């Protein structure tokens, strides 16, 4: 197959393209058409406290609270065969519920082609529900009643969330910074980090991941942290006031706080690896347990 250049194309080389070359060229063009990224932007005028839900197959999600009564989604897909459905309620007037869901237009799309990265801005007062099958979720400055984040293997990072926060991932890590509402965090193999929490009710559970709690205990609050084989580490100011119940089956408790011993409970705990004591006035309740991990309590210098 010959390609002829016009005389006006000065730098054009006359090329001879074989049938195989042509085939490769067409294949490359075809692949490019299949995998070209697409930008999907949607904005909805909402009430101050809408419910916002986003379901994604794969990709990075960032959700931020802002002081506008708008939900704005900026999403990029790797393949044009991935699309976002948006459903809103009610259909007219300020929206009370926005539901966004990534879906495949072609059931044969798989792997990286499923990717949709998304930045979602929501009113501060929004309640948010995020499901990202594969990929990380970062959520910030959301003060709605509920925030729920789930992923199969992605990391979850939640900063300045003031409502009830529920975070669950199987293989990813979870980091929760400055939460002030009720917190529940679960991972199977990932680590969980709580930084400067002011929540009154905080729970964390990981099977084999490590749990770190860093910050002070709030008077009247309750903290329940549990692992199977992962370690639990508490780093808090020396003046922290709490009642500690630390239990392990085969692990150990390594405590650097000066605790006032409490009489052992009459519960049928046959394991000897437990520590019950009070630090200062004992204003917060701290319950730590691990089957075979080490529980460490250290004052924050």
């Amino acid at each position: 197959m010959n390609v002829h250049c016009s005389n006006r194309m000065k730098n054009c080389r006359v090329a001879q393209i074989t049938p195989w070359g042509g085939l490769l060229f067409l294949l490359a063009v075809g692949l490019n058409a299949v995998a070209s990224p697409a930008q999907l932007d949607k904005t909805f005028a909402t009430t101050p406290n809408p419910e916002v839900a986003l379901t994604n197959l794969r990709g990075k999600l960032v959700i931020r609270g802002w002081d506008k009564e708008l939900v704005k989604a900026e999403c990029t897909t790797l393949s044009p065969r991935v699309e976002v459905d948006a459903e809103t309620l009610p259909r007219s007037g300020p929206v009370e519920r926005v539901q966004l869901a990534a879906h495949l237009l072609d059931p044969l799309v798989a792997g990286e082609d499923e990717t949709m990265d998304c930045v979602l801005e929501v009113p501060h007062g929004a309640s948010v529900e995020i499901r990202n099958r594969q990929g990380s979720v970062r959520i910030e400055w959301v003060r709605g009643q509920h925030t729920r984040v789930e992923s199969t293997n992605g990391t979850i990072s939640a900063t300045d969330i003031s409502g009830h926060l529920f975070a669950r991932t199987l293989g990813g890590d979870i980091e929760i910074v400055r939460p002030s509402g009720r917190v529940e965090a679960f991972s199977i193999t990932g680590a969980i980090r709580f930084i400067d929490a002011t929540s009154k009710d905080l729970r964390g559970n990981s099977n084999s991941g490590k749990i770190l709690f860093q910050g002070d205990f709030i008077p009247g609050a309750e903290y329940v942290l549990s692992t199977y084989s992962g370690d639990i580490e508490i780093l808090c100011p020396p003046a922290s006031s709490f009642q500690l119940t630390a239990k392990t089956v085969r692990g150990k408790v390594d405590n650097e706080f000066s605790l006032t011993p409490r009489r052992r409970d009459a519960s049928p705990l046959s394991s000897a690896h437990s520590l019950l004591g009070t630090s200062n006035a004992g204003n917060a309740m701290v319950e730590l347990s691990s089957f075979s991990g080490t529980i460490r309590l250290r004052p924050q210098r």
Partner: protein
Amino acid sequence: MSEQGHNGLENARAACRQFDLELPAYLEGEDRPAVQTHARECVYCGVLLADLEQAVFASHHLPVEEPPARVWANIRARLADQGVIRDQASGWRRWLQHQILQPASASAGVLACLTILSVFLLSPGDSGLKKASSWLTPGVAPTVATASILGIDKDLFQTLRQMEESYQALETTLDPNLKATYRQSLGTLDDSIRECLKHCQRQPSDALAHEYLLNAYRAKAQVLASALLFDGR
């Protein structure tokens, strides 16, 4: 009842049956004078016709909305799966599509079973949990006879086996990264369960170890639920 009355009733029923047969065509706009004639004579059929005509009238004034594209994709996939339509794709693509779709529909069929398991395993304070939990751990799965001795419902035992099978069927279709995550999570939990079981056999009075055993089973049920409900497609 007199013979004349009986015949009258039979005739009326026959007319109603004829009305039922002709009604769909009449509502589609075909000329069926017998439908209107019978509706005037029979109160019951008259009310029925009035209701249906009202529904048809209202439906014509509803806005027509295009369903999301995924609805069409799903319908097409399902029809192709059932052989109703034939995909234009080449042979290997058709084969691949079949391999992908078949376990998904199978997993949908066992979702109800999964719900039963989850409810059973997640109910707090249920003594049956301790008994049922050992089913889930490879290598310590009880026989039906053992299940019977433990007082476990045989049907539930079978259901659980089906659910595990459905997960295994689903696993072959999962993305490699997801599969690795599920394997790692389930493997970690299985290790915990085995270790707890051994400990509980040695120290049956260790309440904390029992608590960990139950928690490991709960977590495993949640992982399976997540796989079948969230990642099944």
